[in-house]
């Protein structure tokens, strides 16, 4: 069943009376990679979490083309600070499969396969909490992709990673996108945005200032804030 389009009408998220996101109107179609950019504290994370459904809307509506329960099963989220479960690498990656009832042996085999793809094939039985930052993020990515989600949200997955780790992660993402996974990702790295984006959402102060195809956005933003942001000026 078709998940997209995802539509948000006047969506708003508040915490302790402070507006984190919104009001937001958005319609996402089923193809390509969407990159969310914007200054720190603009509400990128809250927007992604709202779309993913881990943060509930205080106002407005958010609808997938399919029933909500089904949509929840077909998406995954990679956090800025990856959460390592206190288990071995292979059990971390296998965990989402175990949750949906895949037998232990098969889940471990598929997880081991993924571990090899992210260069952790030698570290299967190592404790995940002992991994380095880049390895953690790759593990989180494998764990998110192992259920082959239709939509993958990523919240600055490459923040605080070096060039090589970033490249490895981008390779996995590009491959996933080729395989039909819809990527919705926030980033601070404009180079990365240019490499991956099919469309760009610019968020400032919890609102969407611009939502346009990547080529158009990078060629010339429609709003002065967008232009200033692209130039590298400080936007608040």
């Amino acid at each position, binding site marked *: 069943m078709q998940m997209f389009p995802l539509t948000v009408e006047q969506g708003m998220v508040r915490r302790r009376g402070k507006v984190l996101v919104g009001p937001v109107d958005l319609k996402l179609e089923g193809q390509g990679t969407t990159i969310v950019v914007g200054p720190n504290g603009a509400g990128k994370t809250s927007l992604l979490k709202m779309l993913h459904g881990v943060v509930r809307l205080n106002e407005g509506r958010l609808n997938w083309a399919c029933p909500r329960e089904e949509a*929840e*099963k077909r998406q*995954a989220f990679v*956090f800025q600070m990856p*959460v390592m*479960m206190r*288990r071995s690498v292979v059990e971390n990656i296998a965990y989402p499969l175990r*949750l949906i009832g895949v037998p232990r042996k098969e889940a471990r085999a598929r997880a081991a396969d993924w571990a090899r793809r992210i260069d952790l094939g030698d570290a299967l039985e190592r*404790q995940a909490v002992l991994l380095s930052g880049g390895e953690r993020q790759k593990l989180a990515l494998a764990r998110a992709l192992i259920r082959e989600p239709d939509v993958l949200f990523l919240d600055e997955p490459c923040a605080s990673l070096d060039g090589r780790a970033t490249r490895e992660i981008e390779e996995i993402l590009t491959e996933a996108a080729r395989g039909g996974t819809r990527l919705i990702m926030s980033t601070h790295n404009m180079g990365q945005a240019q490499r991956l984006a099919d469309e760009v959402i610019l968020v400032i102060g919890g609102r969407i200032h611009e939502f346009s195809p990547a080529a158009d956005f990078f060629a010339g933003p429609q709003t002065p804030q967008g232009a200033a942001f692209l130039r590298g000026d400080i936007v608040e």
Partner: protein
Amino acid sequence: MSDLWGGLSQAFWLVVMLDPDLVEITLRSLRVTLTALAIASAIALPLAALLAVRRFRMRRATIAVLNALMGLPPVVVGLIVYVFLSRAGPFGVLGLLFTPSAMVIAQVIIIVPLVASIAHQSLRELWSDYHDLLISMNTTQGQRIRALLWDGRRALLTAALAGFGRAIGEVGAIMVVGGNIDHATRVLTTAIALETGKGEFAMALGLGFVLIGMAIAVNLAIHWIGHTERGGRW
């Protein structure tokens, strides 16, 4: 001072000669306490995880009550269990009073709040780590509880050991509900109380040293098992 030395040498000879009475009451101590600990853990650990994972209206009150009950006076627990199990009480027909089962019941009541409170403290921290991930993965309540219990097992071991420590050294409640009957409900702590009352300080001290030694041995054994289980980190 000479009592101490007398106690030490008495303990030494009791252990070396494998005194049959000593072996009997030591094994009974262990059996009662480990049974109580197993039952209490089966109640307290899932309860602790549930309290960490689930937000319900009386949650804060429940946690506050649990914390308060950690200091439950054993004699009072013993008294209440006694009243319930006595011939005239609601469970009198079961004939449990002055049996090891009654002692197990009293100890379970004493250590459940302790184990649950300590376990809840550590599981709450683990849950704040896992919260976003497990919510995002669309887990059920049961799956969250299982993940916490499994991944937090080292911390839970500490909680269980605290419960063991409290139960093995407890005398007030099991004296009341067990009655310290020779060859039936006498355990190390009640025997120590008895010997002290009789003025047999060397014997009482000897039993005391055996009790302490056993508590240390059990703790070491459990830690050793926990460490060899997997890589020794968590």
